[in-house]
């Protein structure tokens, strides 16, 4: 009785759910999306495929997961067919994800289209490269690399070959125009500041009377330049007695003599 009641209730519940969708009249286009989501959940790796991943540039990226902006990042993907049927490696997809939520895509890179047939017991190496944009400088991002392939029967497979958080660093090895002009600007500012300070200090010194000592005129030096004076005039002056004083004083001097 209990079981039959539970079954009846569950059937009624299911009907109610579908009925509600019909009654609401909502036209949803969830069909294809739902199928795609189901496919992504179901698609996995093939046991007959052995994949390997290795960074070739930068050389130490395999140990230290750090990339520089503006510099190429290259890696190799090894695909080994351990089965008895052909595989076709379709493409690889590389993307940056939010480090704490890998379902949130920050950037999707262009697919690496290979369409390479791999015979049984054959190994191939595929390569791909990308550049990290400078907007990602100084932050960690999740790097995800997936390889899509299918077997001879048309079954699709996806293999995640890299799924880790990497650090994107700013490349400051080369000369930066911004830094150079900033340096020139600061030099010009400092020179302008020194000039203004000099002007201000000189004004202050003038106001407070701390001016330079004025040179007091004390007449010409005793050394006379005789080059422009005729020699005759000099001789005549030497002949005459050195009588000083005014004509009146000279008369009184004569009278006393």
């Amino acid at each position: 009785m209990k079981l039959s009641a539970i079954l009846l209730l569950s059937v009624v519940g299911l009907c109610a759910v579908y009925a509600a969708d019909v009654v609401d009249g909502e036209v949803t286009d969830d069909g294809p999306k739902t199928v795609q989501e189901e496919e992504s959940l179901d698609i996995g790796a093939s046991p007959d495929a052995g994949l390997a991943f290795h960074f070739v540039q930068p050389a130490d990226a395999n140990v230290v997961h750090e990339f520089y902006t503006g510099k190429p990042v290259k890696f190799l993907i090894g695909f080994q067919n351990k089965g008895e049927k052909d595989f076709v490696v379709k493409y690889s997809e590389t993307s940056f994800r939010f480090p704490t939520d890998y379902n949130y895509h920050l950037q999707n890179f262009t697919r690496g289209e290979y369409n390479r047939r791999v015979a049984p017991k054959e190994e191939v190496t595929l390569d791909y490269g990308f550049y990290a944009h400078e907007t990602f400088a100084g932050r960690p991002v999740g790097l995800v690399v997936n390889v899509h392939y299918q077997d001879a029967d048309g079954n699709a497979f996806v293999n995640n070959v890299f799924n880790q958080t990497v650090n994107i660093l700013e490349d400051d090895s080369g000369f930066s125009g911004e830094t150079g002009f900033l340096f020139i600007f600061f030099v010009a500012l400092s020179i302008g500041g020194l000039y203004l300070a000099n002007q201000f200090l000189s004004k202050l010194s003038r106001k407070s009377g701390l001016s330079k000592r004025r040179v007091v005129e004390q007449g010409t030096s005793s050394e006379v330049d005789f080059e422009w004076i005729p020699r005759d005039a000099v001789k005549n002056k030497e002949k005459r007695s050195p009588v000083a004083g005014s004509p009146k004083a000279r008369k009184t001097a004569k009278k006393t003599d």
Partner: protein
Amino acid sequence: MKFSLLILAWFVSVDASARVLIGKNMLSTYPLAHKQNVFEYQIVNIGNTSAINVELHDRDSFPTDRFEILKGSPNTKFAEIPPQMTVYHHVVVVPRNVQPIEDKNVTVDYTDSETKQVSHVSTLWYSKGRFTHYLHEDALKAVIGTSSKPFLGFAAIALPFTALSSLFYFRSKSRYSVTKQN
């Protein structure tokens, strides 16, 4: 517990072997005919054992009637590549003509030092059927060359101001200079 650990260790040891990956890059900025083009091969052993008798084959990419090989050889041998090591090999070629060249497979044959198993790895630089176009240097002049027009334009704008100003200054100095008297 111990028995399961032993089984796990056995499985791990069974998978230990040499595994080689190949990469090929063109180090020159542009593929130019009648100029030296440098290619770099990276042979990486990501396995746990050494790869011995490693042979690189890429002769098909550089037919001798179309390329002159200056340095290195597209076919070369390495005695041993230790585990977790990368070997670099460089080839310098000069294309004889302006031409598109189809990209061919690069193959590496190697032997595992432990199991003596011979493996064959190939790589496809770009995708099959693509061509690398070796261009003439003149075709890239607009991209890689420097034009004198911007410099001439700058000189035409800057020279009148700087030359005239200096001319006026020296004329004034020569006419009206006053020697200082202490």
